[in-house]
């Protein structure tokens, strides 16, 4: 029956240096106790959170899935008109509609992860003050739920991509698309990591939540979603690439549309920055969750 759970317990009992205690909770705690074992034990909870959010979203509105399609398509149209037609920003010779949609769909996944992770403490105060489970399961479940939204939007993008390819637009979708899972993983880590930091800060400063929308918007403008990195002189690229989302978006476009500025140092710096932010976010989050219940 409860095989895996029992297993974990037996194991920790025999391994434990502390006379067979499974859990020792002390007033003093190290900053670097991540306890991933425990998170793994709660994997069913993560699955059920994903299921809950999915069911709740699709039961409440018939427009649910349709809305996920309308939203990026509308934004793409708006950006195509403003930046493509009026401002006439270059798009690496890619049809503007495809260029913006590619950026918006990939950016959308990151922004969703960030926004929802940022609301972890404030949005779950009620449950968190009543029962213990590893709090990290919430942002992780969110990142998985967001994959569903991303999947829907990405399918629409593929349809549009197919259409443009059929029309003979100058695009080269290459074997490099296999990096998609890695790009998603990086965005999830960056989104969760940064979201966890914001979420931890909002337990003290609730008004930060209001700044978030504005901040995410600004970040998008700085992430080459609406213009290619090649718009800037090459000697400034290193500066722009400090933003770990730039290489993600450029790689995405390079893989699917065959146009983008991707260099090894950019990929490495993006991956390292994402990993660092993820680890810092998780550590801060784990620290705040210990006494979060006292502040509500």
């Amino acid at each position: 029956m409860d095989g895996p759970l029992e297993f974990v317990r037996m194991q920790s009992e025999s391994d434990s240096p502390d006379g067979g205690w499974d859990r020792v909770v002390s007033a003093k705690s190290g900053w670097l106790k991540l306890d991933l074992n425990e998170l793994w034990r709660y994997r069913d909870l993560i699955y059920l959170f994903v299921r809950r959010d999915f069911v709740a979203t699709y039961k409440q509105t018939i427009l649910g899935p349709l809305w996920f399609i309308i939203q990026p398509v509308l934004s793409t149209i708006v950006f195509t008109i403003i930046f493509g037609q009026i401002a006439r920003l270059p798009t690496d010779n890619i049809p503007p509609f495809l260029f913006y949609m590619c950026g918006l769909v990939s950016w959308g996944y990151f922004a969703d992860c960030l926004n929802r992770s940022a609301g972890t403490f404030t949005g779950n105060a009620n449950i968190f003050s009543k029962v213990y489970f590893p709090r990290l399961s919430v942002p992780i479940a969110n990142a998985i739920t967001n994959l569903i939204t991303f999947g829907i939007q990405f399918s629409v993008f593929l349809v549009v991509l197919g259409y443009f390819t059929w029309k003979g637009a100058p695009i080269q979708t290459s074997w490099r698309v296999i990096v998609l899972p890695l790009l998603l993983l990086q965005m999830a880590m960056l989104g969760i990591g940064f979201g966890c930091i914001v979420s931890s800060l909002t337990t003290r400063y609730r008004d930060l939540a209001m700044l978030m929308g504005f901040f995410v918007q600004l970040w998008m403008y700085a992430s080459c979603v609406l213009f290619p990195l090649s718009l800037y002189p090459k000697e400034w690229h290193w500066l722009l690439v400090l933003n770990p989302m730039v290489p993600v978006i450029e790689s995405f476009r390079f893989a699917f549309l065959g146009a983008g500025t991707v260099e090894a140092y950019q990929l490495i710096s993006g991956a390292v920055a994402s990993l660092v932010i993820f680890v810092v976010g998780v550590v801060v989050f784990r620290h705040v969750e210990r006494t979060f219940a006292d502040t509500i």
Partner: protein
Amino acid sequence: MQVIEAENLGKRYRLGVINRGMLYKDIQSWWARVRGREDPNIPVHVAQNPAAVRGDEFWAFRDVSFSVGQGEILGIIGRNGAGKSTLLKVLSQITAPSAGNFKLKGRVASLLEVGTGFHGELTGRENIFLNGAILGMSRAEVRLRFEEIVEFAEVGKFIDTPVKRYSSGMYVRLAFSVAAHLQPDILIVDEVLAVGDAAFQQKCLGRMDEAAFKEGRTILFVSHNMASVRSLCTRVIMLKSGRLEVDGEPGPTVDRYLDQGSVDWDVSKRTGSGRLRIGAVHLEDASGGRLAELVAGQPCKFVLGFDNHGLGPQDRVTVGLSMHGAGTDLFANYSHYSGREFSGLPARGAFEFAWPSVDIVPGHYTFGIRVFANGDQHTGERLDTPPPFMVTIHSSDFYGAGQHGGLSHGVMLVKGVWAVRS
């Protein structure tokens, strides 16, 4: 085998540290300090009390050490504010201790509330799985006990209906049923038995008993219901003002707790001539057993002990009891209202006020006592006015269906009967 061991456990809260909660307010306060102005975000009463600004500490409980063996049902009792709930929160890992440490052996599940995480859009079935997982069960475990859970909850064919369409009775039964079928090694329960109708409560108590005695689980149980603490627990610890006061057998510990039900007066704060003084006051239930707290809908007696310091046989005494709370005065009942004036009082005795049914919404209320001689509250001689004292009224299944409205729906509970007439 010991399964819980707590050592010098303590939880500290900071009082008076003004958590402004907003970044702009912190910046505003900082700017005010820089310019040497008064902080615009400090409430006036705090500004006059510098200690609060420094952030005085408050220990919800402190230096609490105990250990619990496998299969024990440990009752935790104490008055409101004694630190019971905070202790449970710390042991449930909802918040970290500020001092000391505790160790646990085995899987722990805590029930500080039933139905945590229930989602209205999900069906009963989906909620059983979700709630089970939140409480620490794997899907496989829930699946194994699914039939049992549904049967215990008596929701039957509505199991695939979204719970937002359940009656609140069904909702609570389903929520409790999931909790009752958890199979942790240690179960931490807080007052959840005060839910559901009386028959369902009995069923739940039976379930807990079974879990401990037949299945060897350890249960930590906080309750105000002394009858169930007495009958269910194998050991009881009593907290008083955040300290562990007693750790022992249920019977004597509960008795000791109930004896504290009498009120000690601060003699210096009295007014009146003093020819009669109210001494110890305590509460009793219908059969004369002592109560620490009242229960909504149940009868009770206030017993006001007195010492007679010089009233003669001819002096006529009238005594009154008043109740205040929820921002209003609820009643004042003088004995002369019902034609009772007492003369020939002994040197030592007690007034008794029988209250047939405490039909008041659960909460904390204050009571006042006035005693007059040879006249009423306007014309007579004021003998004694002890300071008001606080009494807690606990919830019960007043309406018989496991529901009531809470304070926002008025202070009185009225046993009305609804029907349709055509």
